[in-house]
């Protein structure tokens, strides 16, 4: 088993763990955390694919790596927006959950 396959399987497990956290936690901040966990797993899958594409003297295929860098920046922007929405919800209603009447 090459290291790329190992990290690919690790990314599959991370996606599963993150999905479990996303479904199970009622608090939105924990859901945001779990979503970032899933994101890390998906980027790792890209990284494994890039590692398998090592050729022409490079350690990895640069195109998936550049896609991951773009993805990381956009994921950060999405997290910032989600956190701002959550804090505004807390300011307006005093509760930080999306559940029905607490």
């Amino acid at each position, binding site marked *: 088993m090459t290291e790329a396959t190992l990290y690919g399987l690790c990314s599959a497990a991370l996606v599963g763990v993150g999905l479990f956290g996303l479904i199970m936690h009622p608090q939105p901040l924990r859901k945001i955390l779990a979503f970032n966990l899933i994101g890390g797993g998906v980027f790792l899958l890209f990284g*494994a694919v890039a590692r398998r594409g090592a050729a022409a003297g*490079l350690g990895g295929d640069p195109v998936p790596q550049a896609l991951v860098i773009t993805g990381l920046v956009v994921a950060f922007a999405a997290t910032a927006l989600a956190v701002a929405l959550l*804090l*505004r919800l807390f300011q307006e209603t005093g509760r930080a959950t999306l559940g029905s009447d607490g």
Partner: protein
Amino acid sequence: MAFDIGLALLVLGVGAWTVAARDTFAAVVGFVAYGLLLALLWVRLAAPDVALTEAALGSGLTGGLLVSASTRLRRAETRAVDERQPASLRLAAAVLCTLVSAGVAAIVLLLPEPAPTLAPQAMVNMAATGLGNPVTAVLMAYRAIDTLLETVVLLLALVGIWSLAPDRVWGGVPGPRHQAEPDGLLTFIAQLLVPVGILVGIHIFWVGSVAPGGEFQGATILAAMWILAMMAGLVDAPAVNRRWLRLMLVAGPAVFLTIGLTGFAVAGSFLAYPEPHAKLLILMIEIPVTLSIAATLALLVAGPPERAPGR
């Protein structure tokens, strides 16, 4: 190989702990550790540019954002009763997640052999761009339109955050006022670290054309230095209706788009660079884009306006 297995298990363990932790602050700390371990993983996958981005942005800035959010939401935490989900939901969720994991694992194991790759084509055309770092060449030359749209997406997220301001502080100053104690520790550290950090950020941006690094990593460090200066009270956050701030934010994408449109006239298609001037054009794009992204990232962390503007 043993090191890789250990590292993969460690990342899984920290990820599982982040999901399973009871206290939200503990989960956020676990997430920051998860991000740093992922950066190690990226080095093992021969992707140092991605490792730098993950450590700075995925772990550093996101961690700072989530820590401040979790402390603000702590009051809501104590009020929320421990809402345990019924066991049947847990079982169903566990089955679903196992199925999804198995699906992704099957994809990984069924990837085509030999692996298709664009690395030879990337290396062959790199001399035309004048760059030495293939990832930067992909970001700024082969897939420059992705980078252009990415800068616009960052701006849209910032506009979304600014639109969350209540009416009475519309266009105002983000975040609370941090007072700088003249003999305080945070003030001392900020005065010492911010100049060094700015140098390191510019260096990492500059060296990204020939070595691992680049504009996103450098911009993240510059943004972190601005955030540090704001938190220590050395500078106050600018009001979001200031014209110079808005010009600085828009300058990067605007220059990028302008050079892209002139590509029609000069080299035949959108974002095409005429070959002798490719390196110069890329540099002319990168400098304003780095400044704009640094400002955007810092303001994304600062959040929506909370104080009324001065004038």
